[in-house]
């Protein structure tokens, strides 16, 4: 883990309100594993004050980290104006990352919206064709083309809420369809990232089916280091300390360890 000023190599629009930024951060890039994230200092003054967490979406040319982000508020609005040549403080890589699938597992990646970011990174280090990848978006104009984000050749099944691209409906429906097709020879292992309602549905499906599943969660964060205890999330089991910290114990969790009712 390191904190370093990183040069912006590019910052391009890849879908509506969606950008891909490439940051020259060799030390972060060297350590990063899929599911880990970075905290970016986006404000020039002290407003906004806190860093913003973003999943690492990929590594390019050994020293570049890629971040896929959507404009949702003050910080991301500032980010989209950043230009090549400017620099940015990157803190990372942070968090635990995904546990890689075992041989013989059949990985299924399920993304909602920007939740696609860590899964693109995960997919990039897996054998092409050895997994399924489902990604849901609001509509066609939000769909992130994988070759735009440097993952050309990635075989992605899309769903959109309005049917303007791919399957009309929820991405969890694609997951359910896929699971229905399993024959019992390979064991499906699910990797999911996206908005909370989607993750809850994925949790319900996988807990119900007693399937292995890892979810990547979000929480408001101040430090990203496990120091402030701001990013608490309720554990499922009854123990002395009832909370995990998303930044340190996560952001990737086994679906079994969380208290989904409290989320």
């Amino acid at each position: 883990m390191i904190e370093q000023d990183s040069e912006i190599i590019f910052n391009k629009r890849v879908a509506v309100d969606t950008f891909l930024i490439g940051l020259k951060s060799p030390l972060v890039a060297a350590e990063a594993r899929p599911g880990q994230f970075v905290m970016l200092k986006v404000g020039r003054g002290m407003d906004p004050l806190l860093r913003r967490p973003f999943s690492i979406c990929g590594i390019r040319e050994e020293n570049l980290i890629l971040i896929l982000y959507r404009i949702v508020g003050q910080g991301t609005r500032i980010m989209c104006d950043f230009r090549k040549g400017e620099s940015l403080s990157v803190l990372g890589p942070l968090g635990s990352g995904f546990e890689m699938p075992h041989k013989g597992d059949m990985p299924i990646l399920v993304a909602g919206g920007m939740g696609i970011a860590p899964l693109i990174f995960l997919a990039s280090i897996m054998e092409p064709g050895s997994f399924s990848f489902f990604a849901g978006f609001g509509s066609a104009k939000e769909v992130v083309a994988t070759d735009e984000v440097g993952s050309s050749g990635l075989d992605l099944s899309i769903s959109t809420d309005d049917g303007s691209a791919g399957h009309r409906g929820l991405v969890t429906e694609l997951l359910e369809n896929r699971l229905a097709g399993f024959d019992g020879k390979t064991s499906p292992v699910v990797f999911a990232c996206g908005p909370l309602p989607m993750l809850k549905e994925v949790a319900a499906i996988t807990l119900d089916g007693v399937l292995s599943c890892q979810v990547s969660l979000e929480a408001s964060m101040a430090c990203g280091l496990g120091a402030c205890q701001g990013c608490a999330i309720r554990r499922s089991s009854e123990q002395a300390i009832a909370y995990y910290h998303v930044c340190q114990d996560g952001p990737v969790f086994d679906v079994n360890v969380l208290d989904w009712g409290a989320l």
Partner: protein
Amino acid sequence: MVHPDLRVKIGALELKNPVLTASGTFGYGREFSSLIDLDLLGGIVVKGVSLKPREGNPPPRIVETPCGMLNAIGLANVGLESFLKEKLPWLQGLNTAVIVNIYGHTVEEYGAVAAGLSGVKGISAIEVNISCPNVEQGGMAFGTDPDMSAKVTERVVKETDKPVIVKLSPNVTDIRKIAVAAADAGADALSLTNTLTGMAIDIERRVPKLANISGGLSGPAIRPVSLFMVHQVVRAVKIPVIGVGGIVDYRDALEFLIAGARAIQIGTANFVDPRASLDIIEGLRIFCQDKGIDRIEDVIGTLKI
């Protein structure tokens, strides 16, 4: 130009420089150890320790506000026993002052935690957080009542051989009254301020943004308020004062030192920039060099009014 001497004394406590990290913003130090050399710090104030472990408040626990943040962590901590067993040994390996922030729900609890830390190697001082709700007294905070502040201070001082720093709340009409009460009750030093109480509302869902409804405001936003209180308290008590509140760079630190604080604590700035405290130490060094100041002590309390 010679190397300026950054050492300061807070009563019996000697620090290699006046820059401490504030309780609750620096974990137990270890969280930052791969990012910065902790031995360069004046000291580390660890997360508040209570007699029993506490799970803290339900999330959301933090929310950003203009130039600041609200937190309602709820004093989540591992408890005295685990602190001594699991956290302290690592801290003992450091070459910097370790100050343990403590709190309790009753005077007795404060006393018990202080007693448990008494005589323990590797603890330079105890900082008493009196800004938490006092259950015995019907929810009023100890730190807003001079008598209760004095009672807690007396008890902690009685139970420990360590220097006792009492940490004051800014949510009071006249902080000097609390300061004097704590000083008279035997505090070796005061640190101020803790957070201002505040709130934020989610207008879409029409609920407080924090599950706890209110939280403590910290960060640059509160700096002018903390600085003024330090200014007032320095002139009201004879014991040393440690300045806390919204310090993000060496210039902010200098404002507090010039006002009369003998050391300062860095809180929220650690989140914004994990190197903040080291940059501040470096900034103070360069400031002294540039101005031909031999000792940082010569800056303290030099405000002209």
